[in-house]
């Protein structure tokens, strides 16, 4: 089976103005969403408490809200269904310092009389730890970006590195925009997903760039857009295939992996779609915008090869004792 004919060539660069325009709109919209709606920080970063309760029959959320209303501890608490009608999540902004009598214990006490239930999960993060986790999270995003940037700059020419970072920022921005739009609770797992997108998006871009780098040397045409078009086309099957397999796998995770893993899977889904799009329609056009002197590059390569050959010759002569 083949998705794309070997002989067919696609002119992606002709569309580049349109796609870059679309991308700019998407990224701007994401930032607007981020500033207007903001991110819905979960307890990991905002601090607070989550209590997951499972009843042995469908939970009467209205009654539970009524019961908890009078209790000052549960002031401003949100109570929502979680995964199934039997399960609810209670979210509080507060936390407690007492080890022997914590929010979980208080919840057990407060819920008596609302039916048979079991407290399945308590996540409580104090304000200090929340701040630390947030700082660490931001730090890890920055460090990973820097690490990858250094690697790409080392392996490729600087224009490639900058173009891939632009694609990366594009992907992460849109993923964060989606988190803001759907008010997905941002916890440590979502941060892990964002870091994975970081690696994944670059992964895709690098494979296209690797091909462009190869194409610059091998493809006869000296016109950059031709070289890029051919290289992108050659990697099209791979890009589509890998993205599809990864996408379907994450999709099963999203649908069947359980409620707790949902936010993580959602973030990855967005990242995979955007990451695939950007490696074809953002990273390569940006490279085209930068302009790349193919003839100069080839000349430099030839020069380098010549010097190498020169050196080899000298060495050979030296070893033979003729110098």
């Amino acid at each position, binding site marked *: 089976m083949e998705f794309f004919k070997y002989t067919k060539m696609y002119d992606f660069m002709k569309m580049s103005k349109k796609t870059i325009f679309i991308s700019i709109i998407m990224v701007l919209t994401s930032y607007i969403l981020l500033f207007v709606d903001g991110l819905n920080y979960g307890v990991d970063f905002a601090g607070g408490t989550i209590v997951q309760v499972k009843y042995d029959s469908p939970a009467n959320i209205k009654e539970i809200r009524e019961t908890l209303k009078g209790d000052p501890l549960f002031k401003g608490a949100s109570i929502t269904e979680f995964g199934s009608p039997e399960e609810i999540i209670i979210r509080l902004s507060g936390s407690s310092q007492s080890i*022997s009598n914590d929010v979980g214990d208080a919840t057990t006490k407060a819920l008596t009389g609302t039916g048979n239930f079991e407290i399945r999960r308590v996540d409580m993060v104090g304000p200090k730890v929340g701040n630390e986790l947030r700082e660490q999270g931001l730090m890890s995003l920055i460090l990973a970006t820097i690490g990858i940037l250094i690697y790409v700059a080392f392996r490729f020419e600087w224009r490639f590195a900058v173009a891939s970072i632009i694609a990366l920022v594009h992907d992460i921005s849109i993923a964060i925009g989606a988190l803001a739009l759907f008010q997905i609770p941002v916890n440590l797992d979502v941060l892990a997903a964002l870091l994975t997108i970081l690696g994944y998006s670059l992964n895709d871009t690098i494979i296209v760039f690797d091909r462009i780098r190869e194409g610059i040397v091998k493809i006869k045409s000296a016109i950059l857009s031709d070289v890029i078009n051919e290289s992108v086309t050659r990697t099209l099957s791979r890009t589509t295939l890998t993205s599809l397999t990864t996408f379907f796998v994450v999709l099963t995770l999203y649908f069947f992996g359980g409620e707790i893993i949902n936010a993580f899977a959602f973030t990855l889904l967005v990242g995979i779609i955007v990451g695939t799009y950007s490696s074809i329609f953002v990273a390569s056009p940006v490279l085209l915008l930068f302009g790349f002197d193919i003839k100069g590059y080839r000349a430099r390569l030839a020069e380098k090869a010549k010097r190498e050959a020169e050196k080899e010759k000298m060495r050979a002569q030296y070893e033979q004792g003729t110098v």
Partner: protein
Amino acid sequence: MGMKLNYRIVIFALAIAFGLFFSAPSLLQLEKGAKITLGLDLQGGLHMLLGVKTEEAIVSRLKSVASSVKHFSNREDILLDELSATEDEVSFVVLDSDDAPAIDAMLKGIDDLTVNREGELYHLSFSDEAVLKIQAQAIEQAIETIRNRLDQFGLAEPTVARQGEEKILVELPGIKTAEDEKRARELISRAAKLELMAVDEERAMRVYQMSDAEAAEYGDVILEDAERPGVKYLVREIPILDGGMLTDASVGFNQNNKPLINFSLDSEGAQIFGDFTGKNVGNRLAVVLDGKVMSDPVINERIGGGSGQISGQYTVSSANDLAIALRSGALLAPIFLMEKRSVGPSLGADSIKASLVALVGGFVMVILFMIVYYRVAGVIANIALVANLFIILAVMALFGATLTLPGMAGIVLTVGMAVDANVIISERIREFLYQGVSIHKAIEEGYSNAMSAILDANITTLIAAVVLYAYGSGAVKGFAITISIGILASMLTAILGTHGIYEMLESKIQKSKDLNFWFGVKKEA
């Protein structure tokens, strides 16, 4: 026409054998062999980050300095006046300046103490350096104490470790019920500070009319009864002795067969206790636990031997927990909760089930897809994929890594990403076949041309995973671990392993010439 063995296929076979052998104990739940540990989010359990109120350790050290001074002056018949302990210093006046050298000598024996003397007025405090030292000790001691208590509590493999400068990580896997969890939390957090204090009999009658400030003027404190609300006691502020001199505590029973706690003191404690009881026959002694009076027996005679009892409304298990807490020592400073994550075992089981469904579902889908798209080349890629899965599990088992829920997600994701290398290689081979080169050349060139792309792609993902491991906490670390192992293993299976298989099959492929069958390419070789 034979299938040739080559070094790649041999290494691949060894890797598969390794994967099968070391993942078997975990997969089949064998008795023997290293197994993967399930994270708290999958097996259920309690994770806590605790802080230590180190400033209180200073206060309690100062109090114990005051106790020593008082006891020393009593024994040596040195008259002191205005002995008091505040938050940052102990002060007193020596009435007879001839006694000052003896006091000086005694104070020299106390570590880290700074002595300021203005004539007969003494100010005792701790320098900034000493304060830091005491705070560090308080954290160390808290870790040690909590560890001791949990060891005696009888849970499997509790973890108590320092995290960062001032936090304590406590992990208790395998807690089954909410009651057990609460009991463990109570045991950990209990200060278990035992003090024996003298009741101020002179003013005891007026305790209900007295304010805390007035009591302080007399060098007394007002304490409440542990069990009867509203009942108060007026006791001397500086305790006779405290739990630091305790050598043992155990559960016993009184005449009515109700549980109580027997404790014994070390020789110094026994001497102080003996001296005090000898001088105070007819007065009451308050047994104070964590700032509440447990009982106030009247001293009938001098009590030598250094043993005593704590009575209260105990059940056997609560008396037992208290005895454990007393034996393992008091916490020098109170501890508090900074982060808590508890997962019930049923939720953990649900999470395992759900992520297994996702793993199997995703896996089957990828496998079918690869076969449909690439035919035999797809089958070869799938062999690598399965091998990859076993190797991930084997490496995790060998290193005792913990499998968490995000870790499961990592494995699922690896399935999607591990085929990438084979997709890249297969696409390259197809291209070369279209260009009409020989099958041998298509395979060799396919591998060598795909290599740089695969390496670059994997290394960038690996960089992200390593950063995630370094900065991630708890469950998220598990994700970084599985992703990293998966990437490394895929280099072995997807690059080396599949190459070996192609080499082995090469003569067969050349003979059949059915490229559609082997590579899913509609072209004759």
